[in-house]
């Protein structure tokens, strides 16, 4: 890693100004910090919306039989929970981190294309609004799962074109945001900040942004073809007209698997900033971490069909996708071992960001191992479409991606707000969340191995006990989310003053500016040695 020196200089230009007053500040802002805040607050709101849907699901599954909702609405909740959490919550959250931190980390005064940045954000609430509005349409919202497989997804009611439109808009927002991130990193770095001196968070986002630009248009193409099949008489995915529904699965997962890494790589980046800080050591194997991230990005494009072993693909295809999937374990293990080696003989302290980063390390690894189990083609025939898969991807996405985001929020909240968060409440939040996440998702492995299918509102009585435990865990998780929102707003409103460095000798340009970071930073480029 690089060492940097920077004496913060107050803006010398007379065209520097503070934020506008009132609502216009947020509507028309081109400031990366404002837009980062908007993304993060939007993600927090969506966490509650998607979380409420998860609560409906877990309430219904608390006991066997139909208690609260009818099966069709249950399917809508399953579908919308996934779409909202992925496109409305976790992706915007990481774009929020990127907006706030990348310019600060590379010594740039702002994103390269500030107006495009504003537009990228403001597409999001409208797209999410359109998606949510489908729940109130005749026939309800999409209910065929977030994978939108035809012909099931084509049986939706009036909501179908709105869902497709919303997905296009959400994808457009992501692509525009990614373009902005790439050109910012490639063009706006401070003098002396070579690529291999960039913080790992910046590296992971650079690779993520390329993945997004490569993967998102493929999803857009796929759902456009769904739309033309439904309304314009094409038969891309209709066997009656010479099409093939399995083709959609290939297209979807060609997007869908890189999407998994799009979600997790920024979390890797955040953890790579936190572990060295609280170990008081530089990151072990910086260059290896960069190359491992790039390898994961590349491999993510050649593993997609492990999601569809059961469609009847040739044995050679199964072998290829099984082995290529297992190959991802190698660069991922490089990361896990390097984080562990960073902590080795470090002066460790366990503040809340470090606790979440450590939980990420342990629990994401569990998700990774169950992924390896699913990658074994013959075994996957047993696991496919069971709750084992649900357990696997929730271990990757919740204690993986979401814990990474929460760790990052605690880590940088003092820099954003100028106040320290309440450490006691932070630790209570950590333990409540870490315990409840495991109580929720670990039993789902047992349910899946015992044969409980996913996406069903009712189940056989032998699955009752573990489902009840899983639901109880999810209620604890809801408490954790409410507590987190309380801590965030309490920190925004006040608390002990944060210093510029916030933590003990952290490394990076972001810690050279005061806390809270001034509205305009790095009007004069810092010196990076």
């Amino acid at each position, binding site marked *: 890693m690089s060492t940097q020196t920077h004496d913060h200089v107050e803006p010398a230009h007379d065209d520097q100004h503070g934020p506008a007053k009132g609502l216009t500040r947020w509507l028309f802002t081109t400031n990366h910090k404002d837009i980062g805040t908007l993304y993060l607050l939007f993600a927090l709101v969506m966490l509650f919306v998607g979380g409420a849907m998860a609560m409906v699901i877990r309430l219904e599954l608390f006991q066997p039989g139909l208690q609260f909702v009818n099966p069709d609405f249950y399917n809508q909740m399953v579908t919308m929970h996934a779409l909202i959490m992925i496109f409305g919550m976790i992706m915007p959250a990481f774009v929020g981190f990127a907006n706030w931190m990348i310019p600060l980390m590379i010594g740039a005064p702002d994103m390269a294309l500030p107006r*495009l940045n504003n537009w990228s954000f403001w597409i999001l609430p409208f797209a999410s609004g359109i998606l949510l509005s489908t729940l109130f349409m005749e026939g309800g919202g999409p209910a065929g799962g977030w994978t939108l497989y035809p012909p099931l997804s084509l049986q939706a009611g009036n909501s179908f074109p709105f869902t497709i439109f919303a997905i296009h808009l959400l994808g457009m927002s992501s692509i525009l945001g990614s373009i902005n991130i790439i050109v910012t990193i490639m063009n706006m770095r401070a003098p002396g900040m070579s690529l291999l001196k960039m913080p790992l968070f910046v590296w992971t986002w650079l690779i993520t942004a390329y993945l997004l630009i490569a993967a*998102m248009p493929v999803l857009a*193409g796929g759902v456009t073809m769904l739309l033309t099949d439904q309304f314009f008489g094409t038969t*891309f995915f209709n066997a009656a007209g010479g099409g093939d529904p399995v083709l959609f699965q290939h297209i979807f997962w060609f997007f869908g698997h890189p999407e998994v890494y799009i979600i997790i790589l920024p979390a890797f980046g955040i953890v790579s900033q936190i572990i060295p800080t609280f170990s008081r050591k530089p990151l072990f194997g910086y260059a290896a971490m960069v190359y491992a991230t790039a390898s994961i990005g590349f491999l993510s494009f050649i593993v997609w069909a492990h999601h569809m072993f059961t469609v009847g693909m040739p044995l050679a295809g199964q072998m290829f996708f099984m082995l290529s999937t297992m190959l991802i374990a190698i660069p991922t293990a490089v990361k896990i071992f390097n984080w562990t080696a960073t902590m080795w003989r470090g002066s460790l302290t366990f503040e809340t960001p470090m606790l979440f980063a450590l939980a990420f390390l342990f629990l994401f690894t569990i998700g990774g191992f169950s992924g390896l189990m699913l990658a074994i083609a013959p075994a996957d025939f047993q696991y496919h479409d069971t709750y084992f898969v649900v357990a696997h991807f929730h271990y990757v996405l919740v204690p993986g991606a979401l814990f990474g985001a929460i760790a990052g929020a605690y880590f940088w909240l003092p820099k954003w707000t100028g106040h320290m968060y309440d450490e006691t409440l932070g630790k209570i939040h950590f333990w409540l969340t870490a315990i409840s996440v495991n109580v929720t998702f670990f039993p789902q492995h047992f349910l899946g191995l015992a044969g409980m299918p996913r996406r069903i509102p009712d189940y056989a009585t032998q699955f009752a006990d573990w489902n009840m435990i899983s639901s109880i865990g999810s209620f604890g998780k809801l408490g954790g989310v409410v507590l987190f929102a309380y801590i965030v707003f309490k920190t925004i409103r006040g608390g002990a003053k944060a210093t510029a460095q916030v933590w003990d000798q952290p490394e990076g340009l972001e810690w050279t500016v005061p806390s809270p970071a001034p509205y305009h930073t790095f009007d004069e480029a810092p010196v990076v040695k």
Partner: protein
Amino acid sequence: VTEAAQIEEQRRRARRVALLLGAVALCTYLGFILAIGLRR
């Protein structure tokens, strides 16, 4: 070169690369649909 001029030059380069990346994304989108459509 003043600081402001340097930043403006960086932004100009960024706009050119952004247009290129946008074109790549659009071509992937349309090319994908056309490639599959024409194959059938």
